[in-house]
């Protein structure tokens, strides 16, 4: 299957006079697993909604294969946006049954794989007759995951798929995702709060912070630019002179600094009497996006 390129340019969105997305540019290339990470309220779900033409925008454009996604049948056929499912729908309980969702998916997703869906339902022990409001939080996530995976859409977007799953099921989810990816090489965009676990699954990571894209690059490349440098404060200060400092933590004369630098600059630090430790994706994310909230 040939997948088009999903592209956002200059995207702007405001809610009640508050700007939520600022002039955002994003290109989703086919055949990769992307991770979209950002704090609560960063605008992840809004962004995903606009990319999939389920939400309206105030400025900029979103194209798939060069054509605007809005009301674009080709784009809507190729893209699956699997949201967090809710037990309550508008007013009162969500009375729909799992089979309604499956049937709807079969109608709207041209690549729907019924057998795959069936296997997943069996693995997750989900009964199609059950109503949504009767399901636990974990089971709701499993339904979302089933639909997303079985959709076999060229571009599949999952919004917080692991929320509500326990750690064992989360591992299973990553496994299923990777298995499907190995088989189909389709494009996945997964937005998540649970960063470090998922880091090894993402080929590319997109960091959204307060409506702006901070980073959009291969995960390992990004993580490799960051280090913790710690030791005696004057040594640490000397070493960090040419580096971008993200956070500082001090206890007496022991200082730990999170820095960003290129390979060469980090090499110089090695010669000094300081400890250099790598930062993982979660550390990097917190350093970039905490804005002082995490100490």
């Amino acid at each position, binding site marked *: 299957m040939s997948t088009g390129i999903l592209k956002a340019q200059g995207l702007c969105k405001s809610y009640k006079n508050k700007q939520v997305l600022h002039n955002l540019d994003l290109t989703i290339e086919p055949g990769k697993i992307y991770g979209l990470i950002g704090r609560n309220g960063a605008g992840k779900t809004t962004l995903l909604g606009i990319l999939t033409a389920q939400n309206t925008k105030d400025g900029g454009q979103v194209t798939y294969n060069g054509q605007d996604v809005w009301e674009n049948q080709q784009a809507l056929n190729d893209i699956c946006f699997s949201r967090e499912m809710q037990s309550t729908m508008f007013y009162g309980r969500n009375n729909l049954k799992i089979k309604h969702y499956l049937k709807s998916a079969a109608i709207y997703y041209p690549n729907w794989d019924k057998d795959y869906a069936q296997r997943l339902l069996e693995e997750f022990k989900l009964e199609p007759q059950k109503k949504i409001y009767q399901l636990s939080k974990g089971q709701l996530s499993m339904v979302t995951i089933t639909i997303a995976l079985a959709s076999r859409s060229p571009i599949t977007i999952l919004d917080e798929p692991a929320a509500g799953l326990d750690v064992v099921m989360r591992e299973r989810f990553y496994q299923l995702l*990777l298995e499907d990816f190995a088989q189909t090489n389709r494009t996945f965009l997964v937005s998540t709060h649970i960063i470090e676990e998922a880091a*090894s699954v993402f080929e590319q990571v997109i960091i959204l912070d307060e409506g702006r894209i901070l980073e959009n690059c291969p995960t*390992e490349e990004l993580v490799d630019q960051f280090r913790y440098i710690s030791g005696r404060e004057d040594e640490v200060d000397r070493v960090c002179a040419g580096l971008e400092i993200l956070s500082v933590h001090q206890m007496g004369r022991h200082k730990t600094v999170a820095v960003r630098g290129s390979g060469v600059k980090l090499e110089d630090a090695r010669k000094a*009497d300081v400890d250099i430790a*790598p930062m*993982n994706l979660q550390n990097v994310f917190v350093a970039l996006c905490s804005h002082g909230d995490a100490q």
Partner: protein
Amino acid sequence: MHGTLNDQSLIYLQIAKMLEDDILRGVYQEEEQVPSTNELARGYNINPATAAKGINLLVADGILYKKRGIGMFVSQGAGEAVKQKRKAAFYDGYVKPLVKEGASLNLSGEELLAMVHRAIEEGEPL
């Protein structure tokens, strides 16, 4: 990602190192096939692209080679190649840190060397 991988260094480097260690230990003999990108990805729950990067690193160093349509194989003389590669990195990776640590403990050059000799005697015959 699975247990044996950690977040102390980049994953693809760990994959490459694991394969090298396995070659040194004789887990994979020369001309034997090593796990494919997908097998590695599945085994460690990582993205196939990451596994591929690790393998490509070894291909670039001449330790693995690709047989079209079949998979990745251990090159002739791979064991030696890995040792050479590690020897080159030995100085920066082990000796310099040893000296640096010794200096911070105020050990003299002679004390350090004495310790090295002792370790050689206590350890496996070279």
